[in-house]
């Protein structure tokens, strides 16, 4: 029997195991030691490791990122937690001007092993400022590693890998992935950065989904199966470095690809992935590309509009169908509640 764990429990287990193994790991962030413990992901850590290693912070994202960098220079391995990725915007100065640059700018004299952990929000009225995922902006910056695992297995292995990496790692979770359950080995393990995960095999079309959009792509893959379309679903897992080779190999096989961003389409990961595919495949014409992502407006709160703001399994499936059979032969799967919509109720 495989050991089944929920996504947040896999995160908590990774933190607990890595803090036990390495006394230099410290956890910082607003609410990391409070009763809700970042949706349970830091549960029990302050009791086990003490308040010097598991520490609440003032609401000072920029300053506290600098503190994490300074602590890293002093030999610690801080993980700085933001319960919404929107709050990372307040720390961009330290992340981009300092953390990402210091190893290079000082000619290798120092290095910055910090993890910036953040959770993307979605649904139940998260609205314009609790729903953003700014990984495309960060992918534009050299010196950062960016990971956004979608499965409990990868979130545990990815977090342990992030804590052992000697560079700044932006570690991206998604609120709706917190309902994912999956196989998670009990022992400590890592997953390599720069290696995409093929979540489903298929030969008719490639669906690349980032973060929670990997789950939507998997659902779309199941819908498509009912109409005889075999979709290959890829979760890049790490966005910087990006495993373009796995995506390229799949696309050369299927000749069709949709990249579903968990953010806006403009200058997004989809733009980057498709540009890289085009550059690497300039002699092999005939590949059909499509980008999907957030509607190019701030996220509305009312579900009446929010539902049209995000791509979902249905829109992904019907887009795939249209790419295979053409516009006039359209098809949309029957509506079905997602597991999150069933289980995720407010207020938070």
């Amino acid at each position: 029997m495989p050991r089944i764990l929920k996504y947040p429990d896999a995160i908590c287990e990774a933190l607990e195991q890595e803090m036990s193994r390495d006394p230099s790991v410290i956890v910082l962030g607003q609410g990391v030691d409070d009763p809700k413990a970042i949706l349970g992901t830091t549960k029990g850590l302050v009791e086990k490791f003490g308040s010097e290693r598991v520490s609440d912070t003032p609401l000072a994202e920029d300053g506290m990122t600098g503190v994490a960098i300074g602590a890293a220079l002093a030999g610690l391995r801080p993980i700085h937690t933001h319960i919404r990725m929107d709050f990372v915007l307040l720390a961009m100065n330290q992340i981009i001007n300092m953390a990402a640059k210091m190893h290079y700018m000082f000619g290798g004299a120092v290095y910055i092993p910090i993890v910036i952990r953040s959770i993307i929000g979605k649904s139940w009225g998260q609205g314009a400022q609790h729903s953003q995922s700014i990984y495309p902006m960060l992918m534009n910056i050299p010196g950062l590693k960016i990971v956004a695992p979608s499965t409990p297995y990868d979130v545990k292995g990815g977090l342990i890998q992030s804590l052992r990496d000697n560079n700044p790692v932006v570690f991206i979770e998604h609120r709706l992935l917190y309902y994912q359950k999956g196989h998670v080995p009990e022992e400590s393990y890592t997953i390599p950065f720069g290696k995409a995960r093929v979540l489903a095999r298929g030969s008719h079309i490639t669906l690349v989904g980032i973060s929670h959009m990997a789950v939507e792509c998997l659902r779309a893959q199941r819908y498509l199966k009912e109409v005889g379309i075999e979709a290959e679903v890829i979760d890049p897992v790490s966005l910087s470095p990006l495993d373009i080779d796995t995506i390229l190999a799949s696309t050369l096989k299927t000749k069709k690809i949709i990249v579903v961003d968990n953010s806006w389409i403009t200058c997004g990961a989809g733009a980057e992935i498709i540009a890289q595919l085009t550059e690497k495949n300039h002699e092999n014409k005939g590949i059909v590309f499509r980008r999907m992502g957030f509607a190019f407006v701030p996220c509305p709160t009312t579900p009446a509009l929010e539902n049209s703001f995000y791509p979902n399994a249905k829109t992904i499936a019907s887009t795939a169908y249209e790419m295979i059979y053409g516009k006039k032969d359209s098809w949309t799967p029957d509506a079905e509640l997602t597991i999150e919509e069933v289980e995720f109720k407010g207020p938070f």
Partner: protein
Amino acid sequence: MTFSADKSILYKKFYREIYRIRRVEEEIARIYPTDKIKSPVHLSIGQEAVSVGVCQALRPDDIVFGTYRGHAMYLAKGGDLRGMIAELYGKSTGCAKGIGGSMHLIDTNHGIMGTSAIVGTTIPLAVGYAYGLKLNQKDSIAVSFFGDGAVDEGAFHESLNYAALKKLPVLFVCENNLYAIHSHHLQRHHSDNITERARSYGMPAKRIEDGDVFKIYDFVKATVEKMRAGSCGPVFLECVTCRWKEHVGPCDDFHLGYRSEEEVAAWKRKDSLSSLGSLLESDIRNKIELAVASEITDAFKFAEESLFPEPERLYHYLFKE
């Protein structure tokens, strides 16, 4: 507080340190028009006493963080001169392999943890370093050098609050040269109350108005002893000072009209270098000056003769293995 028994030794040491920084920067200013230094230089000339007064009171294992106007701090803390000049020249033998330039000096062997061109950014780094020192029960301290411009930044306030909250062994040194580029601090601050603001965060704060290297040294010496002894927490020191040269570059800037020549002349009349010099016998002074001159000649020669990084080095140091 006096250290009178040691004074004559200190006169010599302080004279040497300030003279050395002054001469290095004068040489940078002299060379600058040749374009051999392809890096913006923010000279510390006039402000040396702050770095020397503070750093002379520190131990080698104390850690300093600074700003783009960081030559004085780097040299006062013992940073390698050859590495610094080679860095300004963009050579691979520079302290940051030529990648950093004047604004990004570093010498971890001497506790110099880097300077930054973004105002206020190294303040929280010093606080975080102090967090690490405290967690690892070390008795060294972290020192954050910054200017009055940094007081405007959010990171300054976030850092002071957190350092006080966690009682961290960090000394904040505000080098208040009154101007952020050309903007007087009273154009940016409601009142002349930087130390009051620091105090309100929960730490002792002291203001030294005349740039006297001994006052700065004595205060820091006594302060760091208390900081090492236990959990006295952070301390704040504001040193009013004067940048003699333009904000960036080797020249004067009186033609801009944002400050008067007399304002700077008043500071020149109380220059620590001249007052220290007058306390030393001329043969002692000459000996120091000759040694410094030969060290500077050597450093510039080293920089001149060093090689530029090979083009393939472009991608080195992006990530640490």
